[in-house]
């Protein structure tokens, strides 16, 4: 505050002589003298404190922090200065056009010779300063996007540990603790004690929000924080409208629930916070789950899990039974049995055809042998018989080998079939076996037919030598009726020998007499 001196006309009458001063003469003053004159007059005649109503104009606030503006009437203007120390205490931001009441003293600014009001207090007219301040901060933060819905983070469903920033002796903490104890006693509460009203409260609250973020880790993790206080006057709630608190809440990594005053009170904190609770009790309800609900939920989940697993077991059992009963599983066994039957049939057929072939061979051989036995006519015939027997033996060996290999293949197929689990393999066996009977039958045909033909040819050749054919040409064979020896020489004939003579169409018995020595063709 510049020094005020009482008005002293004698000083003006006797100005100090100065080098280069204007020539002394009546009523001629220097600029400084005039200003001094005015300053004296102001000090003497103008009250030290004036309250001036006017509209703010020509507003400027340089880096120095001083506030320069003018107060205007429709036809009048007054320069005003608000020094930084006073301006810093302003709750609102002065704006051009705002009607205010400025309180302070009039002074002369000698470098410019202007009279100005040194404003010590500035109040918006009509609304209170706090309302103006609230409106202004709200608008500014809103422009910055601090209230945007997209900034709001969801609260954890089931927090483990919460922080509460409030007064340790207020109603808020008591309400919060009561509510949490009732709803979810497992919730751990960390109280960050702060003053919630008066000078410096805003800074404490902001610092606590910063501290709980900074030390969350060391404190075991903080899931959510409640910042607030109980009800009070607008002035009481004011710290929660301070920018420093708003900034701290906006910067918090941990979700913040703001709970200030009563339902009707909306603060800047409420707007910046992730969630606004109308009261501290409501905030506690919002952050703490209901134990009863959780136990209900737990019971439900347990029951559902038990029901599900029981159902799954029943389902699996039913499925297993269905599967066992189903053709899908039954069919492989049925197929194997079918194939077994088929193999049996096949073996039977093989056996039958071999037996038949054998019988036919044997019959022919027997017939041939019988004839041979009956006639025994020479080495040629016994040679033929040996050949026939040899052929037949080989034929039978071949048939036997063929039958063995067929059976072996069948047995292999059957074993494979029984081992076969994969459907594809089973199908291949099935396919193979389906065609096996035809293949075996064909093989048997192929083996039997040429051999039969061979046998027929041999038998035919044999029959060419058949002694009966000789008999048809008129020869006969005579045997001793008793010994059945063929009579080859008359030497063998005794008188009255009973003989049998074989002709082509039969035989007759006779008695030999008078055997003659000379030959038949003598």
């Amino acid at each position, binding site marked *: 505050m510049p020094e005020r001196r009482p008005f002293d006309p004698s000083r003006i009458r006797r100005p100090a002589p100065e080098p280069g001063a204007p020539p002394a003469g009546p009523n001629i003053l220097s600029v400084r003298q005039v200003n001094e004159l005015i300053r004296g007059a102001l000090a003497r005649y103008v009250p030290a404190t004036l309250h001036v109503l006017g509209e703010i104009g020509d507003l400027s606030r340089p880096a120095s922090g001083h506030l320069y503006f003018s107060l205007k009437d429709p036809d009048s203007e007054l320069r005003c200065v608000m020094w930084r120390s006073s301006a810093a205490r302003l709750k609102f931001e002065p704006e051009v056009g705002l009607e205010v009441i400025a309180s302070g003293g009039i002074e002369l600014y000698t470098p410019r010779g202007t009279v100005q009001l040194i404003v010590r207090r500035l109040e918006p007219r009509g609304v209170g300063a706090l309302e103006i301040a609230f409106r202004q901060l709200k608008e500014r933060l809103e422009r910055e996007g601090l209230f945007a819905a997209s900034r709001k983070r969801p609260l*954890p*469903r*089931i*927090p*483990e540990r919460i*922080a509460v920033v409030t*007064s*340790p*002796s*207020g*109603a*808020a*903490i*008591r309400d919060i*603790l009561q509510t*949490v*104890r009732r709803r979810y*006693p*497992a*919730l*751990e*509460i*960390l*109280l*960050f*004690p702060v*003053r*919630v*009203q008066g000078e410096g409260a805003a800074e404490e609250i902001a610092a606590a929000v910063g*501290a*709980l973020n900074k*030390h969350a880790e*060391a*404190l075991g993790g903080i899931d959510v924080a409640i910042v607030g*206080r*109980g*009800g*009070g006057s607008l002035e*009481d709630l004011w710290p929660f409208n301070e920018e420093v608190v708003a900034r701290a809440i906006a910067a918090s990594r941990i979700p913040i629930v703001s709970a200030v005053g009563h339902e009707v009170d909306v603060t800047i904190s409420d707007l910046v916070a992730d969630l606004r609770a109308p009261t501290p009790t409501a905030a506690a309800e919002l952050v703490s789950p209901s*134990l009863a609900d*959780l*136990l209900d*939920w*737990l019971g439900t*989940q*347990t029951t*559902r*899990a*038990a029901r*599900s*697993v029981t*159902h*799954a*077991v029943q*389902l*699996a059992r039913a499925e297993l039974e269905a599967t066992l009963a189903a053709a899908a599983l039954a069919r492989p066994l049925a197929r194997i049995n079918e194939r077994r039957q088929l193999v049996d049939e096949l073996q039977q057929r093989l056996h039958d055809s071999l037996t038949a072939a054998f019988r036919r061979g044997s019959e022919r051989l027997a017939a041939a042998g019988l004839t041979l036995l009956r006639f025994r006519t020479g080495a040629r015939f016994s040679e033929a018989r040996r050949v026939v027997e040899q052929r037949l033996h080989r034929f039978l060996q071949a048939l036997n080998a063929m039958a063995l290999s067929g059976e072996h293949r069948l047995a292999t197929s059957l074993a494979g079939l029984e081992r076969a689990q994969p459907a594809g393999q089973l199908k291949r066996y099935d396919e193979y076996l389906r065609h096996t009977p035809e293949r075996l039958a064909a093989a048997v045909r192929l083996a039997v037919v040429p051999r039969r033909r061979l046998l027929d040819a041999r038998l035919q050749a044999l029959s060419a030598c058949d002694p009966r054919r000789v008999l048809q040409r008129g020869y006969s064979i005579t045997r001793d009726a008793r010994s059945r020896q063929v009579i080859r020489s008359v030497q063998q004939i005794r008188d009255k020998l009973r003989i049998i003579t074989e002709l082509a169409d039969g035989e007759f018995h006779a008695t030999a007499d008078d055997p003659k020595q000379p030959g038949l063709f003598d």
Partner: protein
Amino acid sequence: MSKSAKQLKFEEAMERLDAIVEAMESGEIGIEESIAKYEEAMNLAAHCRRILDQAEQRIQKIQLDAAGKPRATPFEPPASEDAGDR
């Protein structure tokens, strides 16, 4: 189980349990898995119940010391309705 049930926070356990029950009820898992999941579900439920049973309220007052380190002390809540500094 990727993480032991005992290490889970309540909310994590809760989400896991919800997911398991949902999976079980979908009927898209086999019997063996279903039984394994049932076991896991029961472990989770027991874990959740244990947390809920820790019913003793824990309240601590946190103040920063001269070095700026947080210091926790037990806190006794105010009893009276009318506390001077609301």
